[in-house]
């Protein structure tokens, strides 16, 4: 082939689908010219398990456990949003103490998830020591989760009208001890992520999402806040006990004084949110009123009440990755008429396109990971080279990324 012909050829690089994103694993097809990405196509649905459809045969209490299994990392926020939707549709009262306990669980999940993400992000740029450091911290958060809920991953803590387990006085010292541990280690993590030259080189100016694009593409959560949009359900609306707490919007400006919307900003954003979550848990522990933890402890009674209810409700909760929204329609039957789930990654997929356009192949892992779609394990890439297929697996893609870090360091 003549040199002219090769320079003009663009390559198509499919990524996935053996690639564990959350609810929606993704199949990407990149069009690249040399090292630069020109266009991106996304295909979803490899983990379509018909969760919403399955709800037609189950009652709301059973759906709580189904919702928990939508995503193993957000195993609190889906039942939480579903409960909020049901409570709004059937106008069910919630025990006051439970509202605070729900905030504690939600923030604990955010700490676990963001620390997990920090490790994955470090891994993507070849900084594996940080991966192990963060997972050591995360295990403490998992222990605390187990202490409070009885389980490590699927927590089974949410119920309609309240929460299933109380935090008693004798449990408080353990919580405070662990929060202190997180605070101490937060400084360590912040030092690594904010002062390390390698991380700065790889993340500053990479994967930029402008404020306008974030707005138009309906991005949610830390992804949109890192682009400078103040959108945080915990502050915007009053649900659980968030309306009572002292909470403010966090954007990367708080630390750096400017918003670039790049990967570095998204790292800062999540770190600041971990700190905010620790403070919120402390506030809740202080302000928590005494009383019942569930408004109606008899599940049969709750179900009977829901069977009579007619109406629609929407539940929205700020999950670690952004807003999760559930819509429920009740029509006086055992099972809800409709249940629609929207996980945060759903909205954070389209923003990948402006983020990745113009970037290098070696930047795909860190840029894609910066929206926290949980690219924690394997993804596989096939390069279609003029009809000849050669495979580039996750390891090689990861190696490319690591090599780029090394090149930058020299």
């Amino acid at each position, binding site marked *: 082939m003549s040199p002219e012909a090769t320079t003009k050829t663009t390559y198509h690089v499919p990524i996935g689908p053996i690639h564990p994103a959350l609810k929606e694993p993704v199949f990407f097809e990149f069009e690249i010219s040399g090292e630069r990405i020109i266009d991106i196509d996304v295909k979803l649905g490899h983990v379509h398990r018909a969760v919403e459809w399955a709800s037609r045969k189950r009652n709301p209490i059973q759906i709580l456990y189904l919702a928990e299994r939508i995503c193993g990392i957000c195993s609190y926020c889906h039942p939480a949003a579903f409960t909020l939707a049901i409570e709004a549709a059937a106008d069910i009262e919630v025990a006051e103490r439970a509202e605070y306990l729900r905030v504690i669980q939600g923030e604990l999940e955010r700490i676990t998830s963001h620390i997990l993400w920090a490790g994955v992000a470090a891994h993507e740029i070849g900084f594996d020591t940080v991966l192990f450091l963060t997972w050591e911290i995360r295990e403490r958060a998992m222990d605390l989760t187990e202490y409070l809920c009885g389980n490590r991953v699927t927590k089974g803590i949410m119920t309609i009208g309240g929460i299933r387990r109380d935090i008693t006085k004798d449990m408080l010292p353990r919580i405070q001890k662990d929060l202190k541990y997180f605070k101490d280690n937060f400084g360590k993590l912040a030092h690594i992520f904010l002062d390390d030259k390698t991380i700065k080189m790889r993340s500053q100016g990479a994967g930029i999402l402008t404020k306008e694009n974030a707005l138009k593409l309906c991005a949610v959560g830390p992804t949109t806040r890192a682009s400078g949009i103040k959108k945080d359900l915990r502050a915007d609306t009053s649900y659980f006990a968030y309306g*009572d707490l002292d909470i403010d919007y966090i954007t990367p400006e708080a630390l750096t004084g400017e918003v670039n919307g790049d990967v570095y900003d998204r790292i800062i954003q999540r770190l600041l949110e971990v700190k905010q979550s620790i403070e919120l848990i402390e506030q809740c522990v202080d302000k928590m009123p005494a009383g019942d933890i569930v408004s109606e402890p008899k599940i049969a009674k709750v179900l009977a009440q829901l069977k009579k209810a007619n109406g629609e409700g929407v539940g929205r909760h700020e999950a670690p990755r952004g807003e999760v929204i559930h819509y429920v329609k009740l029509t006086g039957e055992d099972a809800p008429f409709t249940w629609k789930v929207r996980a945060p990654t759903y909205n954070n997929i389209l923003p990948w396109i402006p983020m990745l356009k113009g970037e290098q192949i070696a930047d795909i892992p860190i840029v894609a990971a910066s929206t926290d779609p949980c690219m924690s394990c394997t993804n596989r890439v096939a390069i279609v080279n003029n009809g000849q297929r050669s495979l580039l697996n996750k390891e090689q893609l990861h190696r490319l990324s690591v090599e780029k870090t090394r090149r930058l360091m020299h």
Partner: protein
Amino acid sequence: MTKDQKTPEEHVKYLKDKFNTNIISADIKKRAAGSKKNETPSIWMKIDKGAFKEIVKYIIEYNYPHLAIISGNDLGNNIELIYHFTVNYGTRLGEINLHISVELPKSKPEIETICDLIPGALITEREKQEFLGVKIKNIPDNRRLFLPDDFPKDVYPWRRDEKGLEKLYKNLHEVKK
């Protein structure tokens, strides 16, 4: 980021004046939470298909909304699409939820795309096409999104009629007779 923030009541009044008959019903629901019982307002509106795009334009002019999702119901003769918008985010406890419901007859389930106004609506519009069998006119990308390519053509999982899923139903724990 907003010029003048309207209360939910003002929104409803303004829209009712402007689009009068096109708005079939509008309710404001408020739900309190926490010890201080702060309220979150939501507007639930049923509107006519004809005015739909104009109303979306009005919201965008007021304050660029966040389109959370489009959800849908199969109501028998009609398919209902509910657009869940939120406006006024960025102000402490100032957010308003806006749920706009449009009913489309099953004989001609068509609606204009809003991707030209809100590009982020693409994924959810594609999802509605494959799960409810509605036709989104002028959608920039018409392909399937979640369902596999070999999935039967005329089956829409969220329908409750003959186009629903009964054929594909599979129960792993069914006791075989």
